């Protein structure tokens, strides 16, 4: 078991999360992808914590989990609110804020 394995895994997770955010229209999945990105950082932090044997990384990971939770709260509230307004979680349907054609 070498750190590189964890590094690769964290990088992979972060990338997958990023891909998910960009490519999915389902807002819930977007939310999950962001969680995944944050969690991958968690993995990294824990790995570092294990590497340097101090608890700092663990504490940071803990704080990060709290942050994830806070974001989750807001995110879920937003999802509820959005679903109420349009009966859908399709992010493409929320595109009224645009000026279809630029003009001078």
């Amino acid at each position, binding site marked *: 078991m070498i750190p590189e394995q964890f590094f690769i895994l964290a990088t992979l997770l972060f990338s997958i999360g*990023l891909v998910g*955010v*960009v*490519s*999915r*229209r389902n807002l819930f999945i*977007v939310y999950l992808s962001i969680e995944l990105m944050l969690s991958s950082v968690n993995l990294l932090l824990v790995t570092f914590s294990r590497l340097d044997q101090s608890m700092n990384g663990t504490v940071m990971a803990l704080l990060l989990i709290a942050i994830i939770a806070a974001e989750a709260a807001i995110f879920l509230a937003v999802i509820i609110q959005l679903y109420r307004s349009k009966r859908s979680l399709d*992010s*493409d349907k*929320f*595109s*009224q*804020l*645009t*000026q279809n*054609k*630029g*003009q*001078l």
Partner: protein
Amino acid sequence: MILLSFIVLIPFLSALILGVIYLYDPNKPREKLYATIGVTAPAISATIALVIEAKLLSMDASTVFHYTLFEWIHIGKFQIELAFMADRLTAVMLFFITFIGTLIHLYASGYMKGDSGYGKFFSYFNLFMGSMLLLVLADNPIIMFIGWELVGLSSYLLISFYHQEYANVTAGNKAFILNRIGDFGFIIGLVVLFISLEGYGYTFEAIEANIGLIDHPTLTIIAILLFVGAMGKSAQIPLFVWLPDAMAGPTPVSALIHAATMVTAGVYMVARFSFLYNDTPDIGEFIAIIGASTALLGAIIASFQNDIKKILAYSTMSQLGYMFIAVGLGAYSSGIFHVFTHAFFKALLFMGAGAIIIALHHEQNIYKMGSLKNKLPWVFIPMLIATLAISGIPPFAGFFSKDAILITAYSSEHYTIWAMGTITAFLTAYYMFRLLFVVFLAPSIRDHKVEPLANSMIVPLIILAVGSATAGLLGIPEALGGSNLFASFVALPDKPLHILHSTEYYLSALNVALALLGTALAYKLFVRRIHEPLNNSVWRYVVVNKFYIDEIYTFFIVKPLLLLSKFLLYFVDGKIINNIINLTVYSYARMGITFASFQNGKVRYYAFYILVGVSFISTSMLILLGGF
């Protein structure tokens, strides 16, 4: 000699006063006042001029009077004073300008009676007098140029005096613009002259003293450019087309400006720069050729005109050609002499024509006149004398002056010029007598009701008739037993003539014979009938329409210029330059619109842009850190 400045300033002052009075209430009739002021001013000038001439006569030939009014400008080495100078050449000009000018003013006070612009007319007229005197009295070229331009301006104002008629204004414009073309050459010449003599002073005397410092090519350029100015002012080929049109002005204007004074300014100027033209004989020859051609052309056209004033106008042009033959060939005093005599008889002719026009209620076509001899005897007799004078019948004035010019041409071996001059002399007699016979002797088609003429119109005619008859006696050449008083008085640097007296006799006789021949031809053709004798042929059309020169100018110069203007406006300005800018703006806006269309409101696209950005940053970071 503060009097010198008075000569110039009084007409200007009077013009200003008249203008202000007129503008104060344009509609109020104040003819007496206007006439008094308007005629008095040139009369005072004339009196002062006589005093000065008397003084000059009493002193020796090189005497020059100077008076500096004030320094006009002084910057760097360009120091010009508003100064006046009177030498003998000036005196001659001064004499006939003020004298004949006063007479014409007097005449005009009668001629313009009842015109709503009476005050305005005299204001302009006095303005013209002032400008002309400024031109003549100037002691340096720049002041002369100012007078030169102002003369043109007042001529413009007077030609378009009846400005309600569009055609009159057009004529005025034409006159001014063609004059300005001449002035363009003139001022360039003057400036080149100044640059060449920078620092040596810029009065005529200083220039004359230092003329040797200029190299010959430059001098040639200057000479040509100055002559271009003369061409414009004196209606020489190719700038002559304005003169006939200028007849749109009131007849006194034609008499004063376009016959007696302004048009001869070119001749005066060349004579003033005689020291320069003596150094450039080639240019002199060129001037003479232009003069001869103009003389001939004017005479030919004059022979076919119907309008009495147009005939006189072309005649003027033709006579001006003579003068340029003289000054071009270095016979400056002969040229000036012809200017002098021509002023008398041409003014007289115009005033007579004006009298007829007034008498016949503004009828100008000679074929609608006829048999006026008895109705207007006091016009007929002066006109007859003037016609004799212009045709070169001895002993009237024109004979001596014209003869002198032709003899000069012959003796300097310019035979072509001489031949042209001689033919012109024949034609002159023909068309002048044609005019006289048709107007006064030929049977009239209808019965004219003749308007009575004011005395103020008749008296000047008579005075001028006397002048026309006798002025030539001042310049009887040696060959005819005289001593050419005139030439010795003006004391210009004439080129010496080498010619036998016998030759002179032959030439004179030939001239007189030709003049008589012309007279006879006119008599035969016109004394009994009042219509054009020739058939309608192409050639006649060409001549009657003045060789279509106006049209050619319009087609080749005016039209293209207007087209160019439109082209520049609509194409270069409107399309090219505007479009370059608009295209820049448009393409930027287009980019903006394209870019803004990425802003499509969908969040995953925005995330995608962020991803692109991150990807870009990562790539460049990777490269920076030396690749993976």
